[in-house]
């Protein structure tokens, strides 16, 4: 078993909140990903078992949503919104400078496994562009210097 007892109990708690078990699938995947970092085939199989689904059905769901990762990434996920409101305010330039700063391209992970950098579609911070989402936290109204500081501070 790759899913811990605690996560398993939390999933059961989620299931209790929905009229049908499957309603808790997205919350469960969030929980498992939080614990394991990504949703491996083994974890997917275990989730499928909990929800009495076929692994392929769970995999379909995982692959549909941006926030679920079937493959392992860095310890931190850093996203630069490059949708139009952010692009109008220099987000693409910011992304390029962060790529150079980390020595990776968008979609890649630093060799020390610290950061996975990627671009993202609109994150709802259009008035505070450009912005970064670092894991669950938004950083807004950024310039290159501030963005680099934020990345450098990540463990």
């Amino acid at each position, binding site marked *: 078993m790759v899913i811990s007892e605690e996560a398993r109990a939390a999933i059961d708690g989620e299931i209790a909140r929905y009229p049908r078990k499957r309603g808790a699938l997205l919350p469960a995947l969030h929980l498992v990903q939080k614990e394991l970092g990504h949703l491996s*085939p083994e974890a*997917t199989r275990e989730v499928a078992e909990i929800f009495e689904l*076929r*692994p*392929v*059905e769970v*995999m*379909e769901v995982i*692959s*549909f949503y941006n926030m679920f990762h079937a493959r392992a990434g860095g310890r931190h996920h850093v996203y630069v919104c490059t949708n139009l409101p952010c692009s109008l305010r220099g987000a693409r330039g910011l992304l390029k400078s962060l790529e150079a700063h980390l020595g990776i391209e968008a979609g890649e992970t630093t060799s020390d496994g610290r950061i996975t950098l990627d671009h993202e579609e609109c994150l709802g911070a259009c008035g505070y562009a450009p912005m970064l989402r670092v894991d669950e936290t938004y950083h807004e109204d950024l310039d290159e210097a501030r963005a680099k500081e934020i990345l450098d501070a990540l463990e």
Partner: protein
Amino acid sequence: MAKITVDGTEYETQEGRTILQALDELGILMNGVDIPHYCWHPKLSIDGSCRLCQVEIEGVPKLQIACNTPIKDGMEIRTQTAPVKEAREGVMELLLVNHPLDCPICDQAGECKLQDYAFEYGVEHSRSREPRRAGKKNVDFGPTITFDQERCILCRRCVRFCREVPGTGEIGVFGRGDHSALETFPGLELDNPYSMNVADICPVGALTTKDFRFKIRVWFLEDVPGICTGCSKGCNVWLGTANNKVYRYVPRRNDAVNETWVCDDGRMSYRHIGSADRLDRAMVRGELGVLEVTSVDDAVAAASERLRALVDAKGPGVVGAVASGHGTNEDLEAFVRLLDGLGVENRGLATVQGESDELLVQAEKAANGEGARKLGFGDAAGVLDRLNTGGLEALVVMGHDLLDAQHLGGIEGLERLDTLIVLDSHHSALERVAHVVLPARHAAEKAGHFTNHEGIVQAVAPAVEPAGEAVPEAEAFDRLAAALGVAGEDAA
């Protein structure tokens, strides 16, 4: 009942159907009323995503998809108007934006709905000059199916099939948008008793069976209607024939029997038709004690002599008969005539019982066990008891199911017989002890009828020439009866 008008013609249909369902039920869909469609399939749930079946409905401003729009009494449907045609052209062109157009090397060419519809309703190619989406080629989906992602139009028929028909659900669509693709879960390949049906329902060349792949271009095939003889279901199939050879079975729709499906085992049973172990010459055991090839006439004469001598000497009580569920009703009737003529009462039926499922597969692995039972052939156990207790000196056997562990389990006991006459389409161990062997035709080589497990009688007609000198069992029995002088007046 509801009255609907389609392109000016009025039809009566049941309530509670969608437009496509109603037209399908009336037998006029793509057979008088052309509403092309990809994702809709009469035996699967409605998907509504390919958007090709859009039609105009009086009083509704937007085009509606015929697959999901419930009919209403008085509904007026138009299927050939300019907006409808334009919408179809739009779908066709968009489907071709990323299609590899590799028809020259695609196995589906000739029976491809993308090809057909593009020609019929669309544009021959897309105006797109953009690089096409690259997809995985020759993906091994499991033991029976190969997947070509580039050709897939994401109609999801296969996905629904696996979930809804065999209930195994191996295939999913991963990702979204124009980067979505069919996949199986790592380690859980497409492997179920009905897996090959996905190739039939795939409208394009994305899913093909490994068995048929690259064997022959489909336009060289002649499709002959026939019956699968793998079990007592009697699934309706098309026999794809060319060069006097059967290249494949594909299911033929019969809602009363097999809907639109056939199981993989049944489908693959076409290979028995022209297989290397076909018994295609008559043989008679000669003075040296070995079977020697001879003509059917000589073999019939030899069989007749042996039976006549025995019956004259000891009466018909020492003769037994084992019918097969592989013969047609006509074959079995001729067998009955022969046995009645000789006065043989030790009759039985030997079929093999195997696995069954809820869907199509029946336990009895013969197409016509029911036909044989209806003609009075009971279980072969009685005949075999008599054999084992030494009460039989001659046996006339159709086929070789008798050798199965459920009956004799081998030839032991048969070697004691004075006379063993075998009619069979394939070689078997029976030949080691048989005195006369007559080559019989496969169901694909003769005309006749089979009675399925529910009593439904279905006709077959010859699809290919017989193997060698194989004769229909009916003919062999009738000739034997004539030689024995027991043929009734109405026998051929």
